[in-house]
């Protein structure tokens, strides 16, 4: 079992590097490194966005949550898909038209303030770390489950592959590698599932373990209504504020292509998210002991052995293992690119030239995450991904929605709203990670903070903007022209250009 699984991990890692190498000779200038010079077609870009987005939480986590807690957990995949609908209707085209590379670029462009830029950069790094550490830890746990290797091995493998890929090719190679990884992940879940469903039917379709009311019916447990609606708000609104999602939109040709890409992403994610639920259900039938032993996160990897055993089980496990590593690698690469891009611009950009700054920042981002992963191995960070959505929904979502659709947003308002939303939601995340969740209502709020923190962030942004309404950004009119008018019209869209900053 372990030999096949290790081979699968090696093949995925090498294939990622090889596919990435195709982009290598194409990456020459700074703008290649950051956004693949925007020469990526909607179909390829949609595969890459989906490949990048489907992380360990989607590939392993959803099935584990469904196995453990049942019907209410189906809202995670629904919300993670619906987040792209909200992104599409409010943000996709204007964000692409802003011609900003990163969220800090957008903040600086829209409210014309360096402070807003710095706060956004800090938030990108914060959200990036909440999201990256669980990927590295997931890789460690997967390798340990399959081979008994210590947890740091998996984390180091992921860190190394991501580093080589990011440093050598930047965004272009990442685009191709990630498009490949979407299809790999889809096939890796689909094939074993088909075999297992056939086996389940041959066994007479047993469903006896599925009838417990707590599990099969939605809205069970205390504070269920608050928790579910808070989860809906965090996932629906959080997607648009994830740094690695947003950076992808700059690789579209224009605003119209950005919309079409998003529509394709929605279809691809919908196809993928039909599968993890079925793994959770099959896990309930064949591997319900994982609930008692607290290892529900491994259900996807454990199922083939439970259902088939022997060589067939080994082969299917190896395929799932390949898919899981594709998930760790693709999400980590995207996050390292976006966190590295921000660090490269804001921290190193003044001391080094563009390409070198990007490479150094990528190394810095990957190594910092590796160190943090090793330091936090005892903490409950596996679900930090879910909470990262709450932080994004409480900070960048109001910035984007108000910045694009409301002329009244000022620099002071944007900064105040991001700080209030960021501090509140991030302290909830830290409480959960440390395991200090209080009992009762307050516990529900800490576990799913979005329903409280998102309205507070919006309210702060609006109130402070109104209080400072005499200080609207100087180029507001041109900014709105740039955000909302189709590119083929010849209009004066102002002079802001993020590349100019980089020299």
């Amino acid at each position, binding site marked *: 079992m372990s030999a096949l699984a290790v081979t699968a991990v090696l093949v995925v890692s090498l294939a990622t590097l090889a596919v990435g190498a195709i982009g290598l000779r194409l990456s020459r200038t700074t703008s290649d490194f950051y956004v693949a010079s925007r020469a990526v077609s909607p179909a390829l870009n949609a595969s890459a966005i989906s490949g990048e987005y489907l992380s360990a939480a989607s590939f392993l986590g959803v099935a584990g949550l469904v196995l453990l807690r049942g*019907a209410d957990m*189906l*809202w995670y995949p*629904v919300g993670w*898909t*619906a987040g*792209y*609908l*909200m992104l*599409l*209707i*409010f943000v996709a*085209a204007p964000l692409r038209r802003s011609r900003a590379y990163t969220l800090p670029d957008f903040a600086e462009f829209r409210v014309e303030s360096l402070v807003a830029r710095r706060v956004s950069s800090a938030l990108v790094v914060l959200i990036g770390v909440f999201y990256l550490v669980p990927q590295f830890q997931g890789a460690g746990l997967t390798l340990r489950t399959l081979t008994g290797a210590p947890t740091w091995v998996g984390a180091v493998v992921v860190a190394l592959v991501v580093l080589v890929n990011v440093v050598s090719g930047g965004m272009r190679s990442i685009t191709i590698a990630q498009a490949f990884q979407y299809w790999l992940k889809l096939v890796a879940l689909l094939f074993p599932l088909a075999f297992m469903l056939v086996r389940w039917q041959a066994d007479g379709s047993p*469903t006896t373990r599925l009838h417990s009311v707590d599990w*099969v*019916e*939605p*809205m069970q447990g205390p504070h*269920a*209504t608050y928790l*579910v*609606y808070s989860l*809906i708000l965090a996932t629906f609104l959080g997607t648009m504020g994830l740094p690695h999602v947003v950076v992808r939109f700059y690789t579209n040709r224009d605003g*119209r292509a950005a*919309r*079409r890409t*998003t*529509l394709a992403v*929605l*279809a691809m994610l*919908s196809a993928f*998210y*039909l599968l993890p*639920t079925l793994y959770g259900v099959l896990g309930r039938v064949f591997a319900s002991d994982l609930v008692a032993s607290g290892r529900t996160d491994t259900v996807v990897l454990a199922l083939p052995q439970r259902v088939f055993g022997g060589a067939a089980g080994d082969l299917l496990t190896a395929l799932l293992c390949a898919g899981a590593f594709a998930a760790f690698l693709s999400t980590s690469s995207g996050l390292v690119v976006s966190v590295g891009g921000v660090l490269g611009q804001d921290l190193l950009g003044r001391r080094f030239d563009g390409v070198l700054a990007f490479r150094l920042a990528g190394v810095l981002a990957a190594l910092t995450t590796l160190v943090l992963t090793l330091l936090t191995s005892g903490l409950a960070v596996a679900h930090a991904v879910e909470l990262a959505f709450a932080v994004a929904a409480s900070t960048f979502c109001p910035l984007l929605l108000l910045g694009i*659709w409301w002329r009244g947003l000022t620099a002071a308002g944007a900064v105040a709203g991001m700080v209030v939303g960021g501090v509140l939601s991030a302290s909830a995340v830290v409480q959960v990670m440390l395991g200090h969740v209080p009992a009762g209502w307050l516990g529900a709020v800490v576990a799913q903070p979005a329903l409280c923190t998102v309205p507070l962030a919006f309210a702060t942004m609006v109130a402070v903007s109104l209080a400072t309404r005499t200080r609207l950004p100087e180029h507001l*009119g*041109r900014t*709105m*022209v740039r955000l*909302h*008018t*189709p590119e*083929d*019209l*010849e*209009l*004066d869209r102002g002079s802001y250009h993020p590349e100019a900053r980089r020299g």
Partner: protein
Amino acid sequence: MSDDRPVRVRVTGPRSAQPRRTSIASEIDAQSAVGEIYMRSLMRSQLRLALGIVLVLAASVGSLPLLFVLLPGFRHAAVLGVPVPWLVLGLGVYPVLIGLAWFYVRRAERNEAAFNDMVGGAGR
């Protein structure tokens, strides 16, 4: 875009190589009151479309948790042995999301085409 106030149109000779620029484009460039009216009408049409989608989403997908709480029969129901909540959340929601996204893309592009016709002029 049914703005019926008369717009001043400057008549110029056709320039062969360059794309035609109507007076509306130059009003927008000059950030005049008329230009602002056109910009606001574009933004309003796109925002109204987006908010309409949110309303449909809230009424359909967003109302499900409340329906589950308020209608126990809905929570217990099953079709062909599969519980209805699982069928709806695991399968039924996704076509709704894709359908809304598809409808939005069509309508948003139509709004922009109307804006282009007006601002870009007859040359397009």
